[in-house]
């Protein structure tokens, strides 16, 4: 009996997957995953902007002590 039920469930699932509803579900899942990727750019972009703003100018200096101090200060604020 359980076997039959499982088979019916399988057939129903495959039918839904092949139907326009299944196609829609796939597109929603893909959209959700794309939105997630886009959301994640906020944090990474903020990190890059922070590194550029806080480290780029000191790192372009030839004064090693200044470079070390800037990196140390930056690291302590992480």
């Amino acid at each position: 009996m359980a076997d039959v039920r499982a088979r019916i469930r399988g057939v129903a699932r495959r039918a839904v997957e092949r139907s326009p509803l299944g196609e829609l579900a796939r597109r929603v899942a893909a959209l959700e995953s794309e939105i997630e990727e886009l959301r994640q750019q906020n944090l990474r972009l903020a990190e890059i902007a922070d590194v550029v703003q806080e480290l780029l100018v000191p790192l372009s200096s030839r004064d090693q002590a200044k470079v070390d101090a800037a990196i140390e200060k930056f690291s302590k604020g992480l």
Partner: protein
Amino acid sequence: MPVSVLSVDDAGLTLSSADEVILDVLFDGRRIWSFWLLRDSRPKGSNRRIAWAASLEKFLDGQTRLGVVEHLSGRVLYDEETRFGSGNGRIAVVNDEGKPLGIDKSGRMAQTFDTRSEEHVAPLLDSIEEVLAALAEAGIEAFPAYGTLLGAVREQHLIGHDSDADLGYVSRHGHPYDVIRESFRLQRRLAEGGYRITRYSGIAFKVDVVEGDGSVRGLDVFGGFLSHGSLYLMGEVGTPFRREWIFPLGTCTLEGRTLPAPAEPDRMLEAMYGPGWKVPDPAFHFETSRQTVRRLNGWFRGTRVFRDDWERRYSSRRDRLPDLAPSGLAEYVVAQEGVPGRIVDVGAGRGGDAVWFAQQGASVTAYDYVPTASRAVQRRAEARGLDLAVRRLNLLEWRSAFAEGARLAHQPGPRTVVARHLADATTRFGRNSLWRFASMALRDGGRLYTEYWVEGGEERALLRRLRPSAVRTELIGHGADIVHEETFDAPGEPGRRIGRTVAQWRT
């Protein structure tokens, strides 16, 4: 059918009830644990069965006057002298210092406020005021949040079953990117002021405050922002909200002190706890909507994956020296190129290889997610005058990987980077950061030696299988040349395959 306790044993309680109720469990008259009967138990025949909370199990050996009480009505369901295990003494649910513990809202065994006297609570309130002032100085209008706000508004006191204090603020910015950058600046300001900060996410962190008696207390600071008519507050809130319900801030009273609060605290509490916030619930669980979780995860989270697991793994071993014999990878490095002049050990853990390399005469920088893991080794290196520096590196934060990569790139000359069981212990994002970090560290030459679990043998906590071909592809993608690649059985563990990849970057 009224709720009743049918039986009690070493594994848990059997109860009967058709209705949902919140129950408190008392040991010798003191609340230790609370739970929702139907939500937290399982059906057993026509009754309900609940196991003792995991954090309580280690205390269950001896006798106690066990009480089970309906939280809201105070009706006593059970009140019997009860024995657990084979012990004869009274059960004392206390910490190493003998201070009473209870299970807080997060399921952790903690010093909850109901066992603390006024003199114990005063330093916490001092800390709250201190951090609020420091945040205000940095231009942030913060207020008590979550349980701390709930206690202030509902009872004007800290909630008995709570164990920590939370602060929150709503940024004036309306875009996640700006809110994150503001949080970074805020952290720097607080760090400059001498506070130690632990970041949880893009907009939440913990501020450690040293109290009068020298003990350190962590206050959580949760950032939030308003966007398109909704409030998003780390870590649970995402709901339609109006700016005027927050600003200008009003006040609340907590343990006799006046503190800032959102303009309409009732609305904030409803956003945090739902419309039932006025009814005490020591077993409250957040039921944050999937949408809000997805938004907060996507915007702000992902920088401390597995961190708590690593902290837990090292927590009891920090002060014990690890095995000081070199690993197979350390021996392999020396067989290939002698003792390198400069070694960077990434994911150094407790520092066994790092200190061994230093003892051989190398100048060693050891990086880890949890730098305190190698505390014993650091002490040994200091006592012996070894050239060993331990630094924090979080591969899940670009800021960390770039800053440390830049530091190394600015110190010219070749070096050797070793990463043993790191590539297989982090995420794909973390691995990509590792390869990028290595390419920066090896700007002036030298090689990366990495080892990882490929397959076979027992599963080990925190390690995941990694294919050598994936490592190769990722490294080549980051501009590396593969110098050597092999797999072999872990010593003494036939069938447990370990991968070893050596790479270098063209200078």
